[in-house]
Structure formats: C-alpha cells, structure tokens
C-alpha cells in the first residue's frame, strides 16, 4: 500500500518548487538593476529566502483556523475550466472573547493562506486580534468568485470588490464572534489594496475601518510590473524559449546534485537544500523572482482574456472545455509580458466602459497617489518598507516617505518582503495597528 507516496512527492515538490521559485508563492516580486539602482545581492536573496527562522518574532503555540467558502451574490457564471473556483475561500482565526478584527490581504497573484500570511496570522492572533486572511484580487480564485469584472489589477476596482466581499463575509460570521474594531493590512500589492479599501470605507462607512498598514506596497503597480518584465527579459530571455533554457539549466543542476548525493529519494529538506544549491548568481535569483511573477501573471491574463472576450489566447466563441489540454495556451502566455496584458485586455476592456478614459488615465488611476490626500492627512494610514525593496525606485520611496511622513518605517534590509515576520517588523506592525507607533523607532 504505497500509493500515497505520489501525494507525498507532490506535496514536497510544491513546497520545494515554491522555495525554488521564490520562498513566497506568488507575491509581487521586485525589479533590480539599472531600473531602480537600489538592487543588491542581499536584497535579492532576502526576497527569495524570506526571514531566517531564528529571526522570526515570538509566535503563539496554537492558532485556531477555520476555512470559509462563500458564494457571492454578484458572481457571474463560472467558466467551465474554473469549475473549482466558484466560491471565494478565505481563512478565519477567531478569539473567544470580543476583539478587534485584522483583515490581511495577500500579494500579487497569491491566495490568502501563504507562508507569509501564516506568520502574520500567528503574530496578529497572538496580539489578541480576530484574523481574516484574504487572497489578492489578482488570484484566480478571487477573479472567478468575487471580481465584478473578471479583469484584475485595477487598483480601485479590485479594492471595491475586496471591500464588498469583506462585508459579505463579516455579515455571515457566527454571532458569537464579537468584533470591537476593524483594521486592514496587506503586503505587496495587498498593501496598496488595504489602503484603498480604507479610503473607500471612509466614504461608504460600511465596515468602519480604523487603521490600515501597508507592508512593502508598490507605489505604481504598472511601473513595478514593467520592471519585472524587464528583469524577465534580461535574465530569462524573451518568450518560451527563454523559459525552456532556464528549465534545462535548473534540471541539469538539480540532477547533478542528486547524482552527487547518496540519497535517491527526493524529500522536502533535500529539495530545499537543492534549491539553495542551484540558485547561485544574482541572475539566478532574479530569474527565479521574475518567473514566479510571470507564473502568476499567466493565470490572471488567462482569466481576464476569457472574461473580457478579448481573444488573445482564448477564442471567445469556443472557450476551452473541461477535458481540453491547456498546455499550448500556457506556453503562449508564458511569453507575454504585462505590457501586453495592458494593451490587449486591460485597456480595451476598461476604455470601453469608462467614459473619457485614456490609456494614460488608466495608468494614472493605478498609482497609490489616487489616495495621496488621505495618506498625507489621515493619521490612521501606516506603511513599512525596506530601502532595498526592489519594487520601488528612489523617487517612489521618496514619495512614500514624503506622503506618510512620521507614519512609515523604512528598514535597511529585507528586499521585497524578505523581513516579514522578523521581530522588529512584527513589533512595529502591531504598534502601528494600535496607533502607538513612534517614528523615532525606525532603524
């Protein structure tokens, strides 16, 4: 009865592949090199490996966890190939006494239950919060079950959808869960979403969001992403041929590693060390980061093309059926940068639906400065970032500092999200959520 080894192998492989690709499954990865001038090897490595376990803040012994599946009333017909994504899945950890609720939003293309989310959940629950963790609006599961357009990565639209979903979820929570206050936070793109959700709530007032904390947010999603595409082009090459070359390189290195080891079976720890061993140069780390991002983009691109009927890879007249192979579609999409998503799906869709909009106005609407007044004047917005966070260039970091003033902590190291869970990051985050954080505490 040895069958479940297949499962085991799979589980470990996912784990390993994740480590290989970038420690966090689908967060918005950084850009490096000439584009920003801020990148360095330490930042890249921190981005890929995350916080070393010995530097993680104290976490509770146990954290209760519940999975919520909810069908949202505005969901459109679920396309056949997305049959498994019909209901929005979020995770909840409840205190058994009245407590404030912290809502955590994941990064680009990520689900609401990543390793990073788990760490944040532990810290927040330990500090006495009910914790609700949600996927990014760019995660396929969210696009299918909760997006009102199906065309993701529009900061305001996505945040509206998130806000609406939050209301539905909170309304359905059992009565014994008593919520005394609501705060939102998020990392990477989720950070920007969190801030915009708070600003939407300021006018609609349905959740009474108190504070928002952005962890490593982008200032302009499109800018960060186009740098990533550049990173992909430089370190992987253009199109699918580049991916195939990268694959050959990694396969060879992994195979040679195993040929050099006495152990034939590949298990979790082996794969982790393998991942550490096969990524060597800055170019390797950059490639892993760029590929992780591209993989998330492929899913979002496919879903949007299907919903918008723009026909880039999905024939709107005969969308793929359940039994159809999607390998060729994935192959084509792997070669497509975000700029193509913008030009062929995103812009045509929103230009047709928003009067007086232009491609330039669509870009401008996706900058964090759409809420700059609130960020500047409202004392309840906070941010944490790193001076070597690769998704920001110097002017963008300067803009964040100037806009948030005394309410931003900028750490020297950590790259993009490479210090989530670190003692200082966690204690500052909790102080920020409690409104007690003092700027002098910044390193």
């Amino acid at each position, binding site marked *: 009865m040895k069958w479940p080894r297949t499962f085991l192998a799979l589980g470990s492989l996912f784990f390993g592949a994740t480590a290989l690709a970038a420690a966090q499954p689908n967060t918005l990865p950084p850009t490096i090199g000439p584009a920003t001038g801020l990148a360095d090897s330490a930042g890249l490595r921190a981005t890929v490996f995350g916080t070393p376990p010995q530097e993680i803040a104290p*976490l509770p012994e146990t954290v209760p966890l519940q999975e*919520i599946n909810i*069908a949202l009333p505005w969901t459109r017909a679920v396309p056949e190939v997305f049959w498994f994504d*019909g209901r929005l899945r979020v995770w909840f950890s409840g205190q058994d006494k009245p407590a404030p609720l912290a809502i955590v939003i994941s990064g680009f293309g990520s689900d609401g239950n990543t390793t990073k989310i788990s760490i944040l959940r532990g810290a927040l629950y330990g500090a006495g919060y009910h914790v609700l963790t949600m996927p990014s609006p760019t995660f*396929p599961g969210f696009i299918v079950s909760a997006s009102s357009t199906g065309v993701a990565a529009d900061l305001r639209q996505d945040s509206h959808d998130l806000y609406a979903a939050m209301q539905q979820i909170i309304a359905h929570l059992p009565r014994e869960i008593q919520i005394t206050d609501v705060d939102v936070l998020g990392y990477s793109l989720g950070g920007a979403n969190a801030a915009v959700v708070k600003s939407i709530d300021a006018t609609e007032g349905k959740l009474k969001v108190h504070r928002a904390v952005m962890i490593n947010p982008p200032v302009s999603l499109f800018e960060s992403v186009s740098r990533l595409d550049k990173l992909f082009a430089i370190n992987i090459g253009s199109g699918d041929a580049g991916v195939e070359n990268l694959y050959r390189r990694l396969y060879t290195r992994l195979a040679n590693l195993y040929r050099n080891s006495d152990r034939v079976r590949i298990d979790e720890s082996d794969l982790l060390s393998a991942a550490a061993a096969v990524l060597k140069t800055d170019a390797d780390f950059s490639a892993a980061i760029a590929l992780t991002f591209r993989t998330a983009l492929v899913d979002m691109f496919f879903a949007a093309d299907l919903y918008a009927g723009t026909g880039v890879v999905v024939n709107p007249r005969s969308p793929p059926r359940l039994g159809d192979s999607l390998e060729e579609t994935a192959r084509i999409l792997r070669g497509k940068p975000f700029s193509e998503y913008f030009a062929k799906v995103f812009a045509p869709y929103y230009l047709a639906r928003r009067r007086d909009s232009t491609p330039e106005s669509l870009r401008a609407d996706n900058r964090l400065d759409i809420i700059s007044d609130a960020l500047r004047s409202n004392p309840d917005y906070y941010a944490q970032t790193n001076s070597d966070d690769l998704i920001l260039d110097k002017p963008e970091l300067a803009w964040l500092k100037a806009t948030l003033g005394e309410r931003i902590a900028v750490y020297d190291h950590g790259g993009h999200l490479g210090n989530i869970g670190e003692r200082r990051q966690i204690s500052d985050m909790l102080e920020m959520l409690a409104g007690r954080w003092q700027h002098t505490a910044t390193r």
Partner: protein
Amino acid sequence: MRAALFMGWVALALGGCASQSFSMRGLPPETPAADNAAAIKAAAVLAAAQTDASQRALNQEGPSTAPPLTAADAPSMYTYDPWERVNRFTYRVNARFDEAVFLPVANGYRRVPAPIRSGVHNFFENLSELDSVVNYAAQLRLGGGAHSLGRFLINSTLGIGGLFDVAKRFNLESDLTGFGTTLSKWGMHPGPYFVIPLLGPATLRDSVGLLGDFGIVYAIDVAQLYRGNKTWALGVVDAVDQRSNTSFRYYSTGSPFEYETVRFLYVHKELIEDEALHVKDRPKKRDVTAPAGK
C-alpha cells in the same frame, strides 16, 4: 451491497458539498511556535548538508563517477501524456473526492492525540520495510536491504510491533524503496503519465510499481494482516494516515493550469530520481526532443 452503500454515501457527499452559499469548517489549528522551532533545526541541518555537498564536489567524491550532465541532456519540458483526456477526468474526480471525503476525514483524524497518530504512522512504515527488503534485493542493493531488514527487526521487537521507531535512535533512518524504483533500476522508462483513480498522479511505471508492492506485501502476509476484512480496514487507516501527513490540496493554486503544473512537477521529479539511480550505469542516449517520460 457494501460497495453500493459506500458509493451512495460518496454521491451524497459529493452532491451536498457544493450547495451551501456560506460554509465555515474547522481546520487543524496552526502551531507557529513549534513550526518555527522545527524550521530553525531544519536550517541547521541544511547548512551542514550544504557544506557536505560542496566539500564532496570539491574532492570529487561521491557515487558520481560519470561526467556531469549538461543542459543538452535535460529531457523535454513537455510530458508524455497520451491518455490526457481520461487523466484530466480522473484528476477532477480525485479532486472532488478529496474535497468531499478524504480531506475532511484526514482533518478529523488530526484531532487524535499526536502520540497515537505517530504510532499508527510508524506501524505502517514498519510494514513497508519488508517490501523494501525484497525490492532492495531485486535492485541488487544489498546494503539497503540489510538496512531495511534491521529496521524491521528492531522496530517490530523493541518498537512493540512497529509502533515506535526505535531504530532511528540507533541512527538507522528510514529509507524505503519500492517496486517502482526496482522497475526503474531494471531499465523501464516512466512511460505515459497516468492519474490513478482516487490515489493521484503517477506514471505507468509507478502504477505497476504500486501493484507490485501490494503483491509483495500480500505474498509475505506478515501476521496475516493481508487476508480477510481487516485488509480493507487497514488500507483505509493507512490512507488516512498518509493523507493527514500530506499538505497537498487540490486546486489550492486556483490556476486553470494546475493539471499541467502537477504533471510537469511529478514526471520531472521522477526523471531526476532516475538520473541519480542510474548514475553508475553507462550514460544512455536519450531523445531529448521526445516528450518527457516516453
């Protein structure tokens, strides 16, 4: 009759799971403090292993006497999957079964106190040591066979019928093998990708390997465990134990390309294992343009 009842229950479970608009179900609690302590330990082990590996590479030691592979030796990125339509169907059925039956049962099982669960786990692992002994012998890896036999003898006696992994304390770590690996050693290619109903991704070679493994333990029939009704009960407990120790969740990627991703990872992992297994053999000419696994 029993089969009909079982299928009826499955149908009910499958049908019922999608009807509610809001559902909240308890998962096993997370244990971040313990997880992190384990991660610190693992990091230390990894650091040691890495030093080891690089030392070995420097000294050109180790089992690899053959020249290292080059990028040109890598198999195609595309997988041999001539039964794709059927496989996709099975993958979906498996996902539904897992979601409706298997996973809830495994999650419930994780509420059983940890010492009992680890006893169960050790018990089944101990049973598979015998299968390993036979397969190591068939692979002509007698050291491995002696290792497994030693573990079996120690754990069956000192470990009270396999409930405790005492052998580990004597530095005899578990290192199981199976008939699938034997077939690989004998030169069989992975063959077409094949999703086994209810069990999950495999290749044709793995599937034959599973049958072989079952054949071996059935033939040995240690303590008459593999005859009569208790075989079924044992099989179920074994399955639940394995599932509860596996973090894989169908469609947690949310991706429409999950089938392709899983297939790629599964088959290429197996090919890498093959590379390590055949390192002492004469390097084989491989058609790197053919889909991987063919």
